[in-house]
């Protein structure tokens, strides 16, 4: 009876992780397209930056509109500040995570706490190295270098270095279900020239982000005094 339970449990565990790609050891192989990376691929920001993107939103493949997104990141402090505005300059949403989530302004349809939490999580996933430990490192079947992090909330984040300075970041739930896929394409200055985010959530959506301007930031993060401070210690779900 005990062995049957163990078998069922093992099958369930294997099934739950079935969507995670298989990682092979990074031994030099002549047939691989790209040489194995000696360190984990890291397209993430290492110094404070402010970035402005045009963000095009698509739901089920159909264009829903476009907005201007401003992101301020201080990687060492895990500080994230962001704003969404219309072309006409109307601020629809403004929030920051210090790391506690503080919503400064949120107009409909951006006025739910879940939206704010997911938005900050997406920004962190794009720009900041995953929090947690490297669970596996190697290459994929096509030879692309990969590192798999297991985050503190038991999710998995795969960071893959592709050809021509492209990167792919994929977040999986603890069950192995894919939640986010991010594709980064290197531009003149950084990896954030073109960002494509695909979300498999309550409803599927895609964000296509094109860099307008990017600049390093020297000053320390200044928190906004407005808005409501969340009691949560961090933005994690």
């Amino acid at each position, binding site marked *: 009876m005990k062995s049957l339970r163990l078998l069922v449990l093992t099958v369930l565990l294997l099934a739950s992780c079935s969507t995670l790609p298989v990682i092979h050891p990074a031994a030099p192989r002549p047939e691989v397209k790209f040489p194995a990376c000696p360190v984990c691929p890291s397209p993430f920001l290492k110094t404070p930056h*402010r970035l402005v993107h045009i963000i095009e939103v698509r739901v089920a493949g159909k264009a*829903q509109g476009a907005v*201007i997104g*401003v992101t301020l990141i201080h990687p060492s402090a895990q500080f994230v500040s*962001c*704003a969404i*505005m219309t072309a006409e*300059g109307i601020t629809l949403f*403004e929030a920051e995570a210090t790391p506690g989530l503080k919503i400064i302004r949120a107009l409909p349809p951006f006025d739910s706490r879940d939206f704010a939490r997911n938005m900050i999580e997406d920004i962190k996933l794009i720009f900041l190295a995953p929090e947690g430990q490297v669970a596996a490192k190697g290459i994929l079947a096509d030879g692309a270098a990969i590192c798999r992090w297991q985050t503190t909330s038991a999710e998995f984040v795969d960071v893959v270095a592709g050809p021509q300075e492209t990167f792919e970041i994929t977040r999986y739930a603890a069950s192995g279900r894919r939640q986010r896929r991010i594709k980064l394409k290197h531009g003149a200055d950084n990896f954030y020239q073109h960002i494509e985010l695909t979300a498999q959530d309550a409803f599927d959506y895609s964000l296509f982000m094109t860099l307008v301007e990017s600049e390093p930031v020297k000053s320390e993060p200044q928190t906004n005094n407005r808005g409501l401070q969340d009691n949560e210690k961090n933005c994690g779900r």
Partner: protein
Amino acid sequence: MHKKLLILFFLLSFLLRPCVALANGFEQLRRNSAGIKTVQARFVQKKSMKILAKPLISEGRFFYASPDSFRWEYLKPLRSVVLSGKGVTKRYIISGGKMAEDKSGGVKAMGIVLGEITNWMSGKFDQNPSFKTALQEGRNTLITLTPVEQHMAGMIEKIEISVVRKTMVVKSVKIIEDKNTATLINFSNVEINKSINASIFQDVE
């Protein structure tokens, strides 16, 4: 008793004087703008926010034809066009290299905001009951609109419109959301009553 009435009369006339002057001021603005049939202009918009070290600059163009047609177009960084006429407002936004109609709920609100700016361009500054208006004369006339409704007060603190006194042309519009956030739109190359092709208010491209 007679003396008291006299004091009250002087007091009332002193208190009412600015209101009368204000109403006259707006009436004068309306009269001076009555001859405006079309307006076209370029604009530069500077958005200031705490998160931005320097203002985010957008550029665009604007067309108005009496009584209610307007085209408000951003050329960069995010191309978008709002077309309005006969009570219908549509917003188009660049998507995959083409202009696509924006079906989001914000279009109506955007139409109201831009329609309001259109009213100002044609001298109608005190038509919206949602705002309390104040007028300050100087080299340029400064009109300040303050929201009276609570829900709008949370979005916009005040709007300042600067009008060139001599020509009655709106020089700039400043929308102040709060002490850290403001949008300044400076108009240039303003042309009044120059013929505008009807397609400007119909065709997106």
